[in-house]
């Protein structure tokens, strides 16, 4: 009966009519909130009762041995993998488990893959153009014209990632490090609220690593950044807060010094030697 009353109520807005794309609500602090998330693949528990909170504007490093579930965690946040149980919230308004990849992306979660993935047949400039935050449905994409404003924005990012003089080249000819840079540039074009960066310095030289660290720390504050990384030196140089994952759940959390003196962490990382 109640249901029919709802149907005739003029003031009522049906749940499915409520616009999904309302702004991200971070008044309560956290921008990303994972609670009791579990997922298993063929009986193997990749993520086990994971709890994680990322504050707005925070730069967080996530470390952990191979198979700790770092990449799976990113898959869950970006909608690629559905967890068996648990809840994932973006701000306090958006339930990410009810959304698909493009929705999550346009909500403001950008992701950099472990292996640099850029569009190799397109030029560096075009790669950035495609990533730009804008209406990405079919007709606006078909009719969009290059304006001075877009050009300026792309040039700005090109300068930032140091690929200005290569912007007409196809991305396929870039070196490994340059591709990583381009991918970070594409994330910047998306203007995300939350950046998920998977192993940004893998295969980079010392110098390149330094610039990456500068860039990522520069981003924190305006955007929340979550960095998954193996390289301890790099983590130490950027992290204020570190989360250690082990066997799909959080083992320790705190500053780098706290974490690295934690006996459990030492055991996980160094095995029997500890």
């Amino acid at each position, binding site marked *: 009966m109640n249901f029919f009353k709802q149907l005739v109520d003029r003031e009522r807005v049906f749940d499915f009519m409520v616009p999904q794309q309302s702004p991200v609500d971070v008044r309560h602090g956290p921008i990303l909130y994972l609670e009791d998330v579990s997922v298993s693949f063929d009986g193997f528990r990749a993520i086990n009762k994971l709890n994680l909170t990322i504050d707005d504007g925070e730069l967080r490093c996530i470390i952990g041995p191979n198979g700790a579930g770092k990449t799976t965690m990113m898959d869950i946040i970006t909608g690629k993998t559905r967890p068996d149980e648990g809840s994932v919230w973006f701000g306090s308004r958006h339930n990410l488990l009810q959304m698909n990849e493009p929705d999550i*992306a346009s909500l403001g979660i950008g992701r950099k893959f472990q292996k640099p*993935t850029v569009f190799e*047949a*397109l*030029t560096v400039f075009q790669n950035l153009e*495609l990533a730009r935050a804008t209406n*990405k449905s079919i007709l606006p994409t*078909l009719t*969009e014209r290059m304006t001075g404003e877009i050009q300026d924005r792309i040039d700005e990012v090109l300068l930032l990632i140091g690929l200005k003089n290569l912007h007409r080249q196809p991305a396929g000819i870039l070196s490994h490090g340059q591709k990583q840079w381009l991918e970070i540039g594409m994330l910047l074009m*998306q203007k995300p609220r939350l950046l998920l960066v998977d192993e940004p310095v893998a295969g980079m030289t010392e110098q390149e690593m330094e610039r990456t660290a500068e860039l990522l720390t520069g981003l924190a504050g305006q955007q929340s950044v979550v960095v998954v990384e193996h390289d301890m030196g790099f983590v130490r140089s950027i992290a204020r807060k570190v989360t250690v994952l082990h066997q799909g759940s959080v083992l320790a959390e705190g500053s780098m010094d706290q974490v690295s003196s934690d006996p459990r962490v030492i055991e996980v990382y160094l095995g029997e030697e500890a």
Partner: protein
Amino acid sequence: MWLTQPLYERSTRIFLGVLLLAMSLVTLLHLVVPADHPLHVSAYTVNLLGKYLSYALLAVAVDLVWGYLGILSLGHGAFFALGGYAMGMYLMRQIGDRGVYGHPELPDFMVFLNWDALPWYWLGFDSFWFAALMVLLVPGLLAFAFGYLAFRSRVTGVYLSIMTQALTFALMLAFFRNEMGFGGNNGLTDFRDMLGFDLRTDTTRLVLFLVTGLALAIGYLICRAIVTSKLGRVCVACRDAEARTRFLGYRVERVQLSVFVVSAMLAGVAGALYVPQVGIINPGEFSPLFSIEIVIWVALGGRATLYGAVIGALLVNYAKTWFTGVMPDAWLFALGAMFVLVTVLLPRGIAGLMHNLNERRRRVKDKPQDDQQELPV
């Protein structure tokens, strides 16, 4: 407007220029040069060229989805044939009581099957504009339904190719059945006139040839406008790194679906122009072999250039006409040999060869390269 955007491009202007020139040349040689002169183009040749042009439009449609979107459709013949059948139904209705059995309304094959009324899906086809609408709608709707299911389930690559192949095969079997009401094995034929013009006169054939050329020009322009727009770059992005495109916020399945539907409609138009020129449409056009042949045209001409598809379609079909005239048994071997040779020696097809020669010439001139680069495949 976005549609006129490609007109600022050199390659499009050259393509349209060459097409226009060829069309006027053929018209001139057909009409002005006397019939016994060696340069005279016969009505038969005009008709043949018109057929080639409709194939070229079909090849452009396939190149749009294969070259730029990475969807290897082995069933585009189905959309071509459906467009052809829609036009064929109109032409059938135009015969009126001039058929063998002289029935005022029913086509011959229906009288032969002892049917006494038109099936509901034949209604409306006595109007050209209704038929023209169906030429676009029927292939478009089929592509929409098929693509919606396939792309939503993220079926891609070889699995999708096999499904498109199955689609066209299933349609072929269905259209072979007399009970379907499309003339079964024999298909639709014995057409007489179109919009009041006798299809068997030379003038009508010339006009059909010119209309087909115009359709090719417009179809090429539409495809070019799509691939040079930002949507075209998104297509290439979907082709090369689908997951990445999704994480950028593009709905890959919608991009695939919309471009696939456009391509199917172009294929339908090509089929509709093909039928009045060859005078018959039968279930053979649904044959998977034909669909594979289209892919070979595009591969020979060069993927992801559009003009390559046109070159490929014209060359292969000219070769086919020549071979089947001189030594019919050797044609399939020749086709296979061409395919192997091009794949081994010219991985980017004839268009790739032209591009390379162009590059070399430019390098010899030692001019800085200013043009936007063609996309590597």
